[in-house]
């Protein structure tokens, strides 16, 4: 199938709006042909800018107006298998408005709203992340508990898997930003599917939600104390979970990954496994960092950590998007962890710092950390 290109859109625009509409009729937008994505916008504007979160590309990429028309286009080379989130910044009369691409139904949601998404050739939304009617669902329970360490009442959500059996001991996964993982990474669906397909054992998953995220998750020892000294005993009291470190995993993304690593470092030999996605592992070799004051405690922790890694865990799954500014920090962590004798699986994706990137890596991370029983099961 030959897709319309920028030249043809410009030529059609010279004829009129209807000619462009006819040319584009039936094609999903942006137009993706191999490693070229052509972004298309229609509307009155002085300027239209592609806003994206791809570290390495210029932050402002201007769409070109087709002649005197209100059609705007931008062909952009993006590597195969990429998944890129974006918005259009429409500038008119001195005002700027960031909008979703009105002609692209594909939207990724996050705590700040949503972004339009382009899937480059070779990227596919994983089948195991899609809800299926034939797959039994796990259940969610919620309880509250006081925390002395955090000086507040905490709401804890717990996912119980499809094959949950109260008389059997289950492995435990504790996830930071739990509700965001449920909403934006479809964590419950992923767990339902992988459990039912025998790709992971039935897990009890504890979902944490912060009150003051950047402070609590920024390597705060009080958060670590809450997780290890208060939360774990409460979970063991309430649920049939394996009480040995070998059965426990702690995980999160971005600052949630920092919170996971810091907790495991402050309290070694509590969690044998860590799931760290796009960790905000900023550090300095010399001088001061430039990431802003919320990173001060993170950099301080990471510098200490890098000096004396110890044995925070035995197996660490680490992933990061290559379009993230954090890719350097994550890559440079791998040899350090391996040098400390920790088993590491590191995966990169052509994606950014977002919840669908983290969703897409869950199968690989969970099946590596919780070895696959499916091998032996034939139903």
């Amino acid at each position, binding site marked *: 199938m030959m897709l319309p290109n920028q030249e043809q859109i410009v030529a059609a625009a010279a004829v009129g709006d209807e000619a462009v509409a006819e040319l584009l009729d039936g094609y999903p937008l942006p137009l993706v042909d191999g490693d070229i994505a052509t972004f298309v916008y229609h509307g009155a504007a002085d300027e239209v800018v592609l806003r994206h979160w791809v570290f390495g590309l210029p932050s402002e990429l201007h769409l070109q107006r087709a002649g005197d028309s209100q059609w705007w286009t931008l062909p952009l080379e993006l590597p195969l298998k990429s998944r890129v989130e974006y918005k259009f910044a429409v500038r008119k009369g001195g005002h700027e408005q960031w909008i979703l691409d009105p002609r692209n139904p594909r939207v990724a949601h996050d705590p700040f709203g949503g972004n339009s998404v382009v899937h480059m050739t070779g990227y596919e939304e994983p089948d195991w992340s899609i809800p299926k009617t034939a797959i039994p669902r796990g259940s969610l329970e919620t309880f509250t508990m006081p925390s002395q360490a955090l000086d507040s009442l905490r709401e804890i959500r717990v996912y119980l898997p499809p094959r949950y059996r109260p008389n059997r001991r289950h492995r435990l996964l504790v996830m930071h930003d739990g509700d965001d993982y449920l909403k934006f990474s479809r964590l419950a669906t992923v767990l339902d599917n992988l459990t039912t397909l025998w790709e992971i054992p039935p897990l009890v998953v504890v979902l944490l939600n912060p009150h003051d995220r950047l402070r609590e998750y920024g390597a705060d020892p009080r958060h670590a104390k809450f997780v290890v000294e208060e939360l774990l005993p409460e979970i063991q009291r309430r649920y049939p979970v394996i009480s040995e470190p070998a059965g426990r995993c702690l995980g999160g993304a971005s600052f949630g990954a920092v919170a996971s690593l810091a907790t495991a470092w402050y309290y070694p030999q509590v969690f044998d496994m860590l799931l760290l996605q796009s960790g905000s592992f900023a550090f300095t070799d010399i001088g001061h960092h430039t990431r802003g004051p919320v990173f001060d405690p993170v950099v301080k922790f990471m510098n200490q950590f890098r000096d004396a890694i110890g044995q925070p865990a035995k197996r660490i799954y680490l992933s990061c998007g290559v379009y993230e500014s954090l890719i350097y920090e994550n890559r440079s962590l791998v040899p350090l962890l391996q040098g400390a004798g920790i088993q590491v699986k590191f995966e990169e994706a052509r994606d950014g710092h977002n919840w669908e990137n983290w969703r897409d890596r869950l199968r*690989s991370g969970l099946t590596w950390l919780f070895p696959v029983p499916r091998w032996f*099961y*034939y139903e």
Partner: protein
Amino acid sequence: MAARATRSGDDRQRLLLLGEQIQQPRLQSCLDRWQITGPVGLISPGWEEDEDDDHWVRESLRNPVVNAMLYGLADELFARDPEVLALLRERQDRLRELRDIYQFQLHHWCAVLRGLLARRETQQIVAQPLKLAFSQLREVDRQYLTAVTDVIREFDRRIAPKHRPSIVAYQRIICQRLESCQALLVAGGHVGVLLNRLRISRVLNHVRLPIIAWSGGAMALGNKIIFYDHFHPHAGQETEFSRQGMKFFRGLQLFPNAQQRLDLHNPIEMALVAGRVPDRPLILDSESEIEWSGKRLVHAQGIHEIGTDGLLREFKP
């Protein structure tokens, strides 16, 4: 190799092998065909602690179902006679060591074979190296199976399942539970666990009834057990032989759950499977069935065979 049933003692025994049943069970029509209207025994220890989570079997049948409870009763046996469990664990440790070395060998030979299979269409020159590599890999498989069989025989010798009072009592309870049954149903699940419990209980030796086995249950009754998963999320998990089966039939190697586990449209991967298996490799889908009467294969339906070229063909017995 010609397909044949091998179970000694009862040439009239009927055996029906089916693919996965849980989604759309056909067990009732199979029992009807055999005119079995009375109670049937269910062997489901492959599902371990969930062995009695058998509601879907009961709901799909008019016949009363008696769960033999091989797994649960074995737990009681282990509690009464901890030495059996200790010996079983010792055996499992030994098997794990053997498997580690086996997998190391598999990675090597499978990589060689993939390289050669990728070139075989265009170069006659790879025919001989391919033959050699397959024979080496088959030898690796054979030696591993021999070593595993030795470990299992040694375990059997030490626990003496025919004479040890605790095990004999376990076997007796199971036989009593199945006393009124007219047929046995053998479910899948964890095939290793299923085999272990079948061996210790000797239920299929003691209770001579027509058998309907599906998926992992059908695998367990075969000659050799093979585990496979081309869609394993982490590369490097090669198809592997596991141990000898119950040998109710020979000449056929069954691959249930194939749609989910085998890369059926990849001739290289499928040729790698077919070239290793001494018996005829058959895809056992949910619609498939193979029926034996004594030593005679009397009926096969909806079965595809994997050719050594990696392509699927209709199975002709």
